[in-house]
């Protein structure tokens, strides 16, 4: 009897400790629903106001992303050859590029509906895949998955996978090509130039 009580006590303790940190699937669902709700109500964003949607992403989405890990993943083995300063610069530029792309994908959001798949996760896991599906009338459902890792500051997304295409590792060959041509600094310059030209275009 005593044993059962202790077990119960422990179970309760573990459960409450787990609750202190939002579960990864709950986090993804909360943020997604939040953002989509705002977009649905905002005419400017629906009409393609890039700056407004970037602001929204900055505020709501970015705190839950680990861009350093994303950049390391995109660069592959060249990451360890880069100096800490290069790593920092590249992370900043890559973040700008990803945010813009991701934000623009959101402005195209109209009649879609997001379905959340049940999460397969053991209590001790520190790396999980949260699966969702985007449904739209007349089209095949699109798989949209998030890879998350557990850090001290909570669960952070380090990869977004659309229809099986990782938005992060899809850069690997392009990054490797740039590094072959002009080193890590050449790569940083290329991504920065890309960001500048996109920024100039959006101002027109």
């Amino acid at each position, binding site marked *: 009897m005593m044993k059962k009580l202790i077990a119960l006590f422990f179970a309760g303790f573990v459960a409450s400790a787990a609750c202190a940190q939002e579960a990864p699937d709950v986090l993804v669902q909360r943020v997604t629903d939040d953002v989509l709700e705002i977009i649905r109500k905002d005419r400017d964003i629906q009409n393609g106001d890039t700056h407004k949607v970037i602001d929204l992403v900055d505020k709501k989405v970015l705190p839950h992303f680990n861009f350093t890990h994303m950049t390391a993943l995109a660069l592959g083995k060249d990451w360890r050859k880069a100096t800490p300063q290069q790593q920092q610069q590249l992370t900043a530029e890559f973040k700008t590029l990803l945010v813009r792309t991701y934000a623009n994908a959101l402005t195209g959001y109209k009649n879609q509906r997001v379905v959340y798949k049940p999460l397969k996760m053991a209590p001790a896991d520190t790396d999980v895949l949260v699966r969702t599906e985007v449904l739209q*009338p007349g089209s095949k459902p699109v798989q949209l998955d998030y890879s998350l890792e557990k850090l001290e500051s909570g669960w952070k997304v380090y990869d977004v996978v659309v229809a099986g*295409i990782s938005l992060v590792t899809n850069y690997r060959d*392009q990054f490797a090509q740039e590094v072959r041509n002009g080193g890590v600094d050449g790569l940083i310059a290329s991504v920065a130039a890309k960001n500048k030209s996109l920024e100039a275009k959006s101002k027109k």
Partner: protein
Amino acid sequence: MTDYLCASGLRRAHRLVLGALVALACSGAWADENPKDPYEGFNRSMFAVNEVIDKYAAKPVAQVYDNVAPLPVKASAGNFFGNVGDLWVGVNSALQGKFGDAGIDLGRLLVNSTVGIFGLFDVASELGLERHDEDFGQTLAVWGVDGGGYLFWPVIGPRNVRDTVGFAVGTYADPVMFVRPVSVRNSMAALRFVDVRASLLPSDKVVEEAALDKYAYIRDAYLQRRRNQIFDGRPPRLDD
């Protein structure tokens, strides 16, 4: 991004494709750094050709269709061609040994062709009969056929050698190709082409903005996506 035009499966195109394949096989591999893309020189020139075709023909037509057709019309067109395609999806599910899926695919075809009024409405999905994503290229992969090098074709877009063969076989099994008179068949094929191209319009902007090198971005996206399809959305993890 990749399902560029399962539409214009005209037999003449096959002969062209097969001829080009033979030419490729004879000319030997390009000397290149990327093992994923042995025919990169050829592919990049085909990609450039396709960019022009897309810019001046396919994309403008798709944009007009997207702007003019109301959502219910577009959804019905998508559903209709989806329903027509479910037969071949079912055959491929069966060929891959997924008989449960094949049953669902045929169930979808029956339900949507009747209750869904010739496939204009996807009633089956509402009933929980989920649409699958299968084609003969995937079947060949499941059977252990090697991908055989990446290729980029004008009009039909990115396909490796295995998927090019799968595409060619698929058009012979395409119900639309059996429609007579030929003028109706061609109209249907054209509408499907436009429908597919229009469905890709939102991703155009993303690719333009995201890519440092558009050719490489599309190639790598294609390779990742096909791998995902072959493993039915559960590919084993590639660890670095």
